[in-house]
């Protein structure tokens, strides 16, 4: 009898040490807590990768700053002058490509396959024009005597601008793959993470260029 009474008392007098919070121990989650992830895992991975790329370019730019600020005369004497005007026009092509890829992404979100293919193609064309003009200017500079081994100025120029061009080339390859997949109808309204991540990377390399242009060509 005493044991039953004790057991019953224990059942009845359960003391809640903590008040039950919604979402912890059952019930609806707190308001504002999204049920679905805020972004795709690939999107997050590309975001972190872009952070690493930004630090890579920051290191190169830091090295350039050391030589540029420490030099009494810049550019050093007897070095060819950089094509500021032509590269300025080339910059416009690259900036325009950032606009076109954003439009392509919006088309992907809408599920408009035709517009997506069109705007991706235009972005690739603008990127290719940028690389072609850069390549032509480099050939001119090499003929004028500015090479990687000619001076610190040449080494810095080709390292910094060269790595950026390499990134643009890589982004262009990625864009061509996305373009080919888009032509085959691979992307849909709820399946466009490939376009989204490609757009992120392309926007990054485009956004990087004005900083490099200002630092290397104008400063």
């Amino acid at each position, binding site marked *: 009898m005493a044991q039953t009474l004790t057991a019953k008392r224990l059942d009845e007098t359960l003391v809640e040490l903590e008040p039950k919070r919604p979402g912890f121990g059952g019930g609806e989650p707190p*308001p*504002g*807590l*999204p*049920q*679905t992830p*805020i*972004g795709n895992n690939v999107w997050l991975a590309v*975001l*972190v990768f872009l*952070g690493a790329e*930004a*630090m890579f370019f*920051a*290191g190169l*730019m*830091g*090295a350039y*700053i*050391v*030589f*540029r*600020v*420490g*030099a*009494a005369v810049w550019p050093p004497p007897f070095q060819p002058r950089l094509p500021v005007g032509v590269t300025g026009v080339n910059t416009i092509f690259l900036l325009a490509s950032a606009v076109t890829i954003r439009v392509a992404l919006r088309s992907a979100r809408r599920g408009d396959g035709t517009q997506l293919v069109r705007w991706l193609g235009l972005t690739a064309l603008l990127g290719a024009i940028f690389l072609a003009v850069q390549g032509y200017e480099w050939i001119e500079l090499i003929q004028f005597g500015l090479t990687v081994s000619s001076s610190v100025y040449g080494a810095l120029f080709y390292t910094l601008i060269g790595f950026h061009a390499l990134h643009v080339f890589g982004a262009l390859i990625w864009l061509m793959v996305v373009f080919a997949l888009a032509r085959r109808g691979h992307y849909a309204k709820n399946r466009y993470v490939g376009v989204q991540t490609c757009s992120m990377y392309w926007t990054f390399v485009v956004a990087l260029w004005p900083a490099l242009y200002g630092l290397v060509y104008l400063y």
Partner: protein
Amino acid sequence: MLKRNTLLTSLLAGLAAALAPALACACAVCLTGDGDPTANAFNWSVLFLMATPYAVVGSIAGWLVYSYRRAAAKRDQDHATESALHLALSEKESGR
């Protein structure tokens, strides 16, 4: 109260360091290289490289917070729309 006092003390300490150059330039390398173009160049480079991680991590974190809030707002909107739709379609509630 304690947190506000700590924050205020930290801000005042930082301000004192900024306003007192001798105190701020306690680093022997920075102080002895004053006026030297190479030291000046390194200083600027170090400042740039120090600021970049904050900018990068801050941008990523800011974008994640913005995406989270946008997703939460969309979820709330969808939930509200769904609730209203349920009421409209319910025969009992609509009076049909």
